[in-house]
């Protein structure tokens, strides 16, 4: 084969080395995704990554291993997988570890086309599984990186196949590419790199991303019941302390974690004037060392379990002070299976129909299992109320007191638990003494008791994250803490308040969740961090509602319906907030995109198109009117001169910019490829094109061709030739 212009391109061995490099990069990217997964494979990933990097740097290494090792590799992987499957309780981690081993095997062994495609598929498997299980923003980045590598990889495979067709190579020649030095190879890559092709490739990749975005938006969505989901095949450990049992110290551990626990997006932030309490778990049963969700409450939750996508909160028609518009919650995996609720709501909506456990009396909503991925849900008609209406509670309490549940009926909700605190004569004696200190021996209503108890606690105990409980016999930790002057943190204050209220005969319970958060300065949503974890108490007012009591120093002491604080919202405009806003965009636009939003988007597009068309039309009409008015004004010499001068100035500026751009371009090209760029040849080419357009055939064409293509020694004087070309063109014009 011969070509007119000698191509600058990689030969077969260099292409093979490039393919090896891209294959390794592909494997590394796919292994990177495993870091997002919470499975026991990080050591394996580390080893696999190190080995892949080693064979990337020294591609001749696999050739030095005895063939027996390669033959035994696949059986060894199969045996390892069988053993892993036997010992591991979950299926998916086993599959992921198998995929890691296979990626390692394929990445370090010399590959032909079939093995290359296998590597690609294994990498895609890891990426997709990690993406589905984590729904993280990192997945988007890695998927794009993987796509770029995969497209380049396939492109090189195709080139290798085309250039190697029919060629018979010796065994020595087959591995010649492994002996190419990296320095030479990089030099060759730089030599053959063509900026036009690189720009074209970048444009194409951008096109792919845009096209996939458009396809994502227009792919029709319809709801099919959730039939298969990978997170069923993996068990995840909870990272937060918000499970059914909270021991003293669980919440405080979270206070040291600055990671974002959830993000709350609302359509109208103007009405939110206080720091919301994000209520997660209600702990109604006291246990030495902490509080827990009672078995009866769990039973109530279990009995209330239904597969549903929507849940109505408040009865329809009740007038409330709604704030925030539509609240969308993005709760990070591992926070809790209980959904954070800031107050009463009209409608709770989830992305898919899922098994949902509810307890309306306790205003608890929980998923059956803790989600492996980000959980998203929406609340409509939210009211940030500190009270929780529960008119049935007195009736239930009376019923339980008159007809106590049987001991073997542990799963029946027992409201009497909200009156039980530390038991035993020593505990009770201390609590009685403290209650009388608080109340002064009088019987106080719940609100008044709450205020006094909070004041007493704040006067007696300071706030600190480290707690030293005095030693003692016969009394519980919380009682000893109450009786001391030791500082404490939110859990101790909330628990102390709860046991005091119970000792005073007021039903009370402990609640854990989050308090406050910061507004993201870029995308206008609430970032609630793990350090916002909080515990507070709820006390029954004796009539029809529970109200919130936050005895922790710095918190709102007793918040009732009429006591809405005017807290100024803190805004975060740091770089981390900017990065975090990308994550919310990812959640908003990608992860949480559904058929409803698809319809909304189409309607928005329609509205935008119509509005912008009308606006443009109006603007054009306005410009036209102004132009007419300007033209209709009386003209005199001065005005005419000014107008002409302005027009000429603008034209001259445009011409100057055009010339400067052209010269800059020429100089850049000359600097980039001085040997290939010649202004005389280029100008001759331009003139040839102009004369060809006018079909001029004169001697000057031959001279121009000589300037364009001929040897420099044979050139006529260029300026004279260009002048003659100009004259020839003018002659035709006339």
């Amino acid at each position, binding site marked *: *084969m011969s070509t007119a212009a000698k*191509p600058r391109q990689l030969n077969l061995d260099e292409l093979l080395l490039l393919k090896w490099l891209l294959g390794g990069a592909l494997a590394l990217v796919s292994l990177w995704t495993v870091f997002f997964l919470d499975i026991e494979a990080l050591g394996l990933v580390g080893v696999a990554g190190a080995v892949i990097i080693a064979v990337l740097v020294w591609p001749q290494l696999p050739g030095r291993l005895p063939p027996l090792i390669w033959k035994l590799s696949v059986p060894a992987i199969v045996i390892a997988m069988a053993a892993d499957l036997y010992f591991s309780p979950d299926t998916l981690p086993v599959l992921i570890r198998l995929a890691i081993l296979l990626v390692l095997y394929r990445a370090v062994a010399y590959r032909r086309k079939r093995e290359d495609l296998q590597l690609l598929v294994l990498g895609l498997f890891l990426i997709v599984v990690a993406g*589905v299980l984590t729904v993280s923003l990192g997945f988007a980045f890695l998927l794009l990186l993987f796509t770029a590598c995969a497209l380049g990889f396939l492109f090189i495979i195709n080139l290798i196949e085309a250039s190697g067709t029919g060629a018979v190579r010796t065994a020595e020649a087959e591995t010649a590419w492994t002996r190419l030095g990296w320095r030479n190879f990089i030099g060759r890559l730089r030599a053959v790199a063509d900026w036009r092709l690189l720009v074209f490739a970048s444009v194409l990749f951008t096109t792919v991303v845009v*096209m996939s975005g458009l396809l994502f938006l227009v792919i029709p969505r319809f709801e099919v019941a959730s039939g298969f989901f990978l997170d069923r095949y993996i068990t995840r450990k909870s990272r937060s302390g918000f499970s059914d049992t909270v021991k003293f110290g669980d919440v405080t551990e979270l206070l040291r974690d600055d990671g974002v626990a959830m993000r709350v997006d609302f359509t109208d932030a103007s009405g939110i004037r206080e720091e919301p309490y994000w209520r997660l778990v209600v702990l109604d049963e006291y246990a030495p060392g902490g509080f827990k969700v009672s078995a009866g409450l769990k039973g109530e939750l279990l009995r209330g379990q239904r597969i549903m996508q929507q849940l109505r909160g408040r009865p329809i028609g009740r007038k409330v002070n709604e704030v925030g518009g539509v609240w969308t919650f993005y709760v990070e995996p591992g926070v809790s299976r209980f959904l954070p609720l800031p107050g009463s709501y009209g409608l709770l909506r989830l992305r898919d129909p899922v098994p949902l456990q509810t307890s309306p009396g306790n205003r608890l909503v929980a998923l059956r299992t803790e989600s492996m991925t980000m959980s998203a849900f929406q609340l409509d008609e939210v009211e940030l109320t500190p009270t929780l209406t529960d008119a049935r509670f007195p009736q239930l309490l009376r019923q339980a007191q008159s007809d106590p549940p049987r001991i073997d009926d542990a799963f029946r909700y027992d409201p009497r638990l909200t009156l039980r605190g530390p038991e035993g004569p020593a505990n009770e004696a201390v609590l009685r003494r403290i209650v009388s200190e608080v109340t002064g021996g009088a019987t106080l209503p719940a609100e008044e008791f709450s205020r006094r108890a909070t004041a007493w606690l704040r006067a007696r105990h300071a706030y600190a994250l480290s707690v030293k409980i005095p030693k003692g016999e016969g009394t519980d930790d919380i009682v000893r803490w109450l009786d001391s002057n030791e500082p404490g943190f939110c859990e101790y204050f909330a628990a102390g308040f709860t046991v005091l209220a119970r000792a005073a005969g007021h039903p009370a319970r402990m609640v854990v969740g989050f308090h406050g958060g910061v507004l993201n300065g870029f995308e206008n949503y609430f970032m609630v961090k793990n350090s916002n974890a909080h515990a507070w108490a709820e006390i029954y007012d004796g009539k029809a509602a529970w109200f919130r009591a936050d005895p922790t120093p710095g918190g709102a002491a007793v918040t009732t319906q009429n006591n809405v604080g005017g807290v100024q919202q803190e805004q975060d405009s740091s770089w981390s907030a900017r990065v975090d806003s990308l994550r919310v965009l990812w959640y908003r636009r990608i992860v949480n995109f559904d058929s409803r939003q698809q319809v909304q988007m189409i309607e928005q597009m329609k509205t935008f198109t119509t509005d912008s068309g009308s606006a443009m039309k109006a603007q054009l009409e306005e410009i036209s009117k102004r132009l007419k008015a300007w033209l209709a004004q009386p003209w005199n010499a001065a005005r005419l001169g000014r107008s002409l001068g302005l027009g000429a100035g603008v034209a001259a500026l445009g011409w100057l910019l055009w010339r400067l751009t052209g010269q800059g371009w020429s100089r850049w090209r000359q600097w980039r490829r001085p040997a290939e760029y010649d202004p005389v040849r280029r100008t001759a080419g331009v003139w040839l094109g102009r004369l060809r357009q006018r079909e001029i055939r004169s001697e000057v064409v031959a001279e121009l061709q000589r300037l364009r293509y001929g040897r420099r020694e044979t050139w006529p004087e260029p300026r004279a030739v260009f002048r003659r070309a100009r004259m020839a063109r003018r002659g035709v014009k006339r």
Partner: protein
Amino acid sequence: MNSSITAAATLDWDGPGAPAHARREFTWHALLWVMVFPRKRHRIALTVPGLFLMATAMGIGTAAYNTASNILFITLSLLLACLLLSGLLSWFNFMGLCWRVRPQGPWRAGHETLVTVEVQNRKRWLPTYSLWFELATQPRHIPEPEDGGKNLRMREILAAAEKYITRGRVYLRERMEPGGTALLDWGVKPTRRGEALLELGAVGSLFPFGFLKKNIGTDLKQTVLVWPAQVEYQWIGAMAAHTGSQGQRTARAGIGDDLLALRKYQQGDSHRLIHWKASARLGQMMVRQFAAESRDGFVLSLDSSATRWTRAEQFELLCSLAATLAEDLFAAGRLRGVILNGGILRETRRLRDVEAWLDELARLEFSENGGRTPSSAMRGGGTPPPVTHNVITFAPEGARGVTAYVDGRQTASA
């Protein structure tokens, strides 16, 4: 020349970027329609990786709908976008390409010859990668099966015809730069004498990712004449040759006494050959060139009548022997002329005269209408030509052989 082209248009470039390629006016609906219904002979087929990609996309799509997971939806849309990009790049790859086919040298049955595919990339910015060209050659008239194909099924008829077709594929292995030209050679060995059809069936590519195999069918066809095969024969002409024509002047350069022409001096020429007068007149050294003298020249007379040649194989051997004898005798300077079926004597003074004779032999068909019926079928005689001596005629020998006679005496056999 033995390669003649049936239509002048076929000499021209073909392909999307061919100068004469009819450019349709661009309209969006035409573009969309082409995507739905490709042009005639444009075929796009899925390869194994492409099939796998589609299966993966379908699997991920099913999982996406089943779980309503947007992660799977975005993966699906990325896969589909890659497929669209593949089609787009493939379109770019073929854009501005044109090609033509040029058969090289004489085509002779049983001898390898070359066909050159010339490809041009007329794009201004973008190169072209990894193409292949599917070429085929076959006799213009493929012999029908012995029983006329009445008892054969279509598949068997096609299989029988396929035996006469030689197919090949040439690859563009390197990148073709914008404005570049590539020449690709295909070696082919024609099997039969006669008119052959050389065809560029399709131009294909797996570019860019190997998901789709795109084929662009072409109408590039050329008719090429295949000369008869050269055969080995036994020459016993020394005892048969007549000496009457010795010393006759020929039109070829040689060492005779007659001046044939003047030519420029070349290094190694004898100084005695310099024509001083002409050299002085022209200002450069000229030398005399003398005509060669023929020795015992022969006339080849071929009678192709069906009454004489009843067996097709024997007829083919006749053509081959006549062609081989003509070339050998001309090379030895002993071929005076040729006569076909008792026609007029055509002298063979130049190489193109011999090539014209080979062309005639290539076109000679085995049939009852092949030639004039001879008046007498005497052994070694055939139709007596107007020339009187050193006439080589041909006659069957046995069931398979062919013998050449000079004035009735055996002079060669094959």
